[in-house]
């Protein structure tokens, strides 16, 4: 007992020199876009993060976890300045990273260079692939990760010709990349359609789909207005007979609140299924809804999970945050259940966990949500390949989506 305490004191003494808040407080710098065009995401992130600490208290063993919030406005330059402020002025021990891909890369790179661990929920593939740093941990799925299962499943269902429709930027390339890689490897053929982000009128795309008359259509969407407009056009053109599957973020709550009963039965491949019947999910959704009057989005869920991972890691390291050792300890964790389900981390600091085929169903008490109908366990960011094999392939782009 004495030896243990002495060891703990020695370990704490070796903590970051910049920790002004005392050796029994761990300060986390939480950066998210609370203003700007993705303000809704950033706000959800803060809410999810806060909810965890509210429900579980922010003491872990002997340490108190203190959060300092910063707004990055969705701009990488501002995100960098805020990261600098958090590291140099506030002396944070951990950074919970921003969500937009370019802000995440900028902040992750800077924070790692200062020897500080950072946690992320962004889906940007390369953060835990070609741009991995041992200080970085992604508490989430890559943009392509949840769509490999979709491609395989589509082929197993008997579909042979698919059309993909994704936004023409990195998230869309990676989302469709996941589906196309798996579907074509199994033997299917694809026709790819790309639309610019923020498309107002999807009728040209939907009519092209109608003309191509595929067996199945895969839609990669970042959710929100794009998804709503697309689905409206889909129904207007009478395509309801063609099977449609969405990616992680197509049938999100923003979409469901607007489209409601018309979306009943829409199937997607998601990692955050808010309708999943598990005590972890039910508790999170109920508590969140009590406070904010809406069903939590994946950004809230991801941030809640980030907080959970921080707490669990601190428990494991006895409150010590020591650069890459903290990240290694976190990556060793395994959860038998969580808001995402049971998961572990791979050796590239990314989640290996379940992906659900979900269906939109009406909820008792009003509203619609996604309920899993099939579970695909242990999906990795590298699909069924080894890390080396996967990384030898080019980065997903408009020209390369893994087509065989």
């Amino acid at each position: 007992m004495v030896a243990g305490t002495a060891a703990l004191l020695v370990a704490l003494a070796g903590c970051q020199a910049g920790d002004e808040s005392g050796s029994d407080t761990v300060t986390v710098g939480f950066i998210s876009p609370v203003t700007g065009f993705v303000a809704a995401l950033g706000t959800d992130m803060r809410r999810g993060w806060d909810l965890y600490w509210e429900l579980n208290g922010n003491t872990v063993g002997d340490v108190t976890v203190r959060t300092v919030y910063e707004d990055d406005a969705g701009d990488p330059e501002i995100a960098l300045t805020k990261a600098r402020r958090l590291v140099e002025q506030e002396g944070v021990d951990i950074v919970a990273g921003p969500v937009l891909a370019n802000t995440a890369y900028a902040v992750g790179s800077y924070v790692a260079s200062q020897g500080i661990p950072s946690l992320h929920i962004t889906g940007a593939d390369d953060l835990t692939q070609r741009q991995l740093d041992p200080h970085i941990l992604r508490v989430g799925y890559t943009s392509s990760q949840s769509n490999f299962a979709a491609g395989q499943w589509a082929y197993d269902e008997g579909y042979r010709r698919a059309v993909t429709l994704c936004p023409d930027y990195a998230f869309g390339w990676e989302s469709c990349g996941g589906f196309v890689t798996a579907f074509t490897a199994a033997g299917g053929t694809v026709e790819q359609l790309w639309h610019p982000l923020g498309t107002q009128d999807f009728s040209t795309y939907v009519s092209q789909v109608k003309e191509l008359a595929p067996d199945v259509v895969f839609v990669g969407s970042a959710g929100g207005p794009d998804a709503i407009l697309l689905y409206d056009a889909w129904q207007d053109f009478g395509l309801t007979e063609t099977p449609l599957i969405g990616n992680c973020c197509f049938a999100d709550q923003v979409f469901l609140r607007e489209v409601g009963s018309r979306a009943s039965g829409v199937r997607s491949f998601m990692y955050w299924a808010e309708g999943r019947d598990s005590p972890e999910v039910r508790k999170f959704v109920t508590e969140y809804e009590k406070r904010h009057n809406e069903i939590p989005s994946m950004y809230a869920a991801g941030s809640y999970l980030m907080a959970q991972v921080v707490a669990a890691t601190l428990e494991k390291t006895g409150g010590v945050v020591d650069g890459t050792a903290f990240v290694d300890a976190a990556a060793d964790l395994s959860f038998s259940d969580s808001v995402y389900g049971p998961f572990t981390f791979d050796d590239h600091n990314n989640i290996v966990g379940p992906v659900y085929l979900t269906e939109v169903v009406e909820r008792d008490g009003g509203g619609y949500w996604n309920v899993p109908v099939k579970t695909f366990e242990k999906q990795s960011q590298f699909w069924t390949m080894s890390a080396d094999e996967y990384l030898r392939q080019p980065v997903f782009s408009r020209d390369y989506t893994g087509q065989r």
Partner: protein
Amino acid sequence: MRRYLWWAVVAFATTLLVVVPAVSPRYVVSLFTLTVITALLAISVNMLAGEVGLLSMGHAGIAGAAGYAIAWGARQHLDLAPQLGLALAVTLLVSAVYGVTAMRTDGIVFLMITLALGIVVFGLALKWSRVTGGQSGLTGIRRPAAFADPQVFYYLCLILTAVVLLGLTVLRRSPFGLVLRGVRDSERRMTSLGYSTPATKFVAMMISGLVAGLAGVLGVWNAQFISPAVAAFDKSAMAVIIVILGGIGFPFGTILGAGLVVGIQHWLSSYVERWPTLLGLLFVATVIFMPRGIAGAIQGAAAGRVAVAPWSTWLSRIGIRRSGTTAPEVEIPHQTSSPEVATRKGTE
């Protein structure tokens, strides 16, 4: 005493710029560096707006292109000289494209064309992912070892900005500067005097583009990262806002304007959640109460020209035309064939 008010402000600001970063923590130094680099881009816009009467809404495109050139060069592990050479070549190329496309236009057409060109650069940065890294950008760019220290790098930026300001002053006092102002005041008259106004505007765009390119390179070295956001419309728009806040035609005022904007965006935003509203209100207030910008207002006060204008004047400033200015108005100087307008401008 009052006459020296502007010089007092300049001296005070310069002292701050020189002294504060020497004694401050790294975070403060990084804010100052960002201010100076942002000011540099705004100065390039101000040069065109103040001297030639052309307001560009796309200069972040030139800065962004130069930034990507040096970022790509750094990741290919080129030596410093080829990196800079590449950045220079790209800057000249992009400025030339801007120049050729816009040299026969002015006023609102010029604004729209430069806006469009800026978006073209942004689109290229977004889509040409093999070279630019697409939306995720390029990480791991290190500035030259000699400037690795943030303080050393800051003073490099400060010195370069001072050199640019000096250069622009020399330009303003040169015969070519006269030609530029002639084009600003009346293109028609310059043409009738035998000057090729498109060629003049092209050269002006090249010079302005060089400054913007420099700002782009320094920006990448500061962040050690680049993504399409550097060429986005809101960066160009922010440069214009800074120019208007500081005062069109007052290069040092641009630095004050940049200090304000960077201060709100990057520092005040940590304490005030509705900071974009604050920035907007500041901009609206400047346009209504200080249409010549902060520098213009201070210089006006120094010359004893301040009076509390009647409320009707303030109202009219929200409208299209103002009377009695020596610097170009906040709205783009617009050449009309009306002799009344030509005479009014000719009397300044």
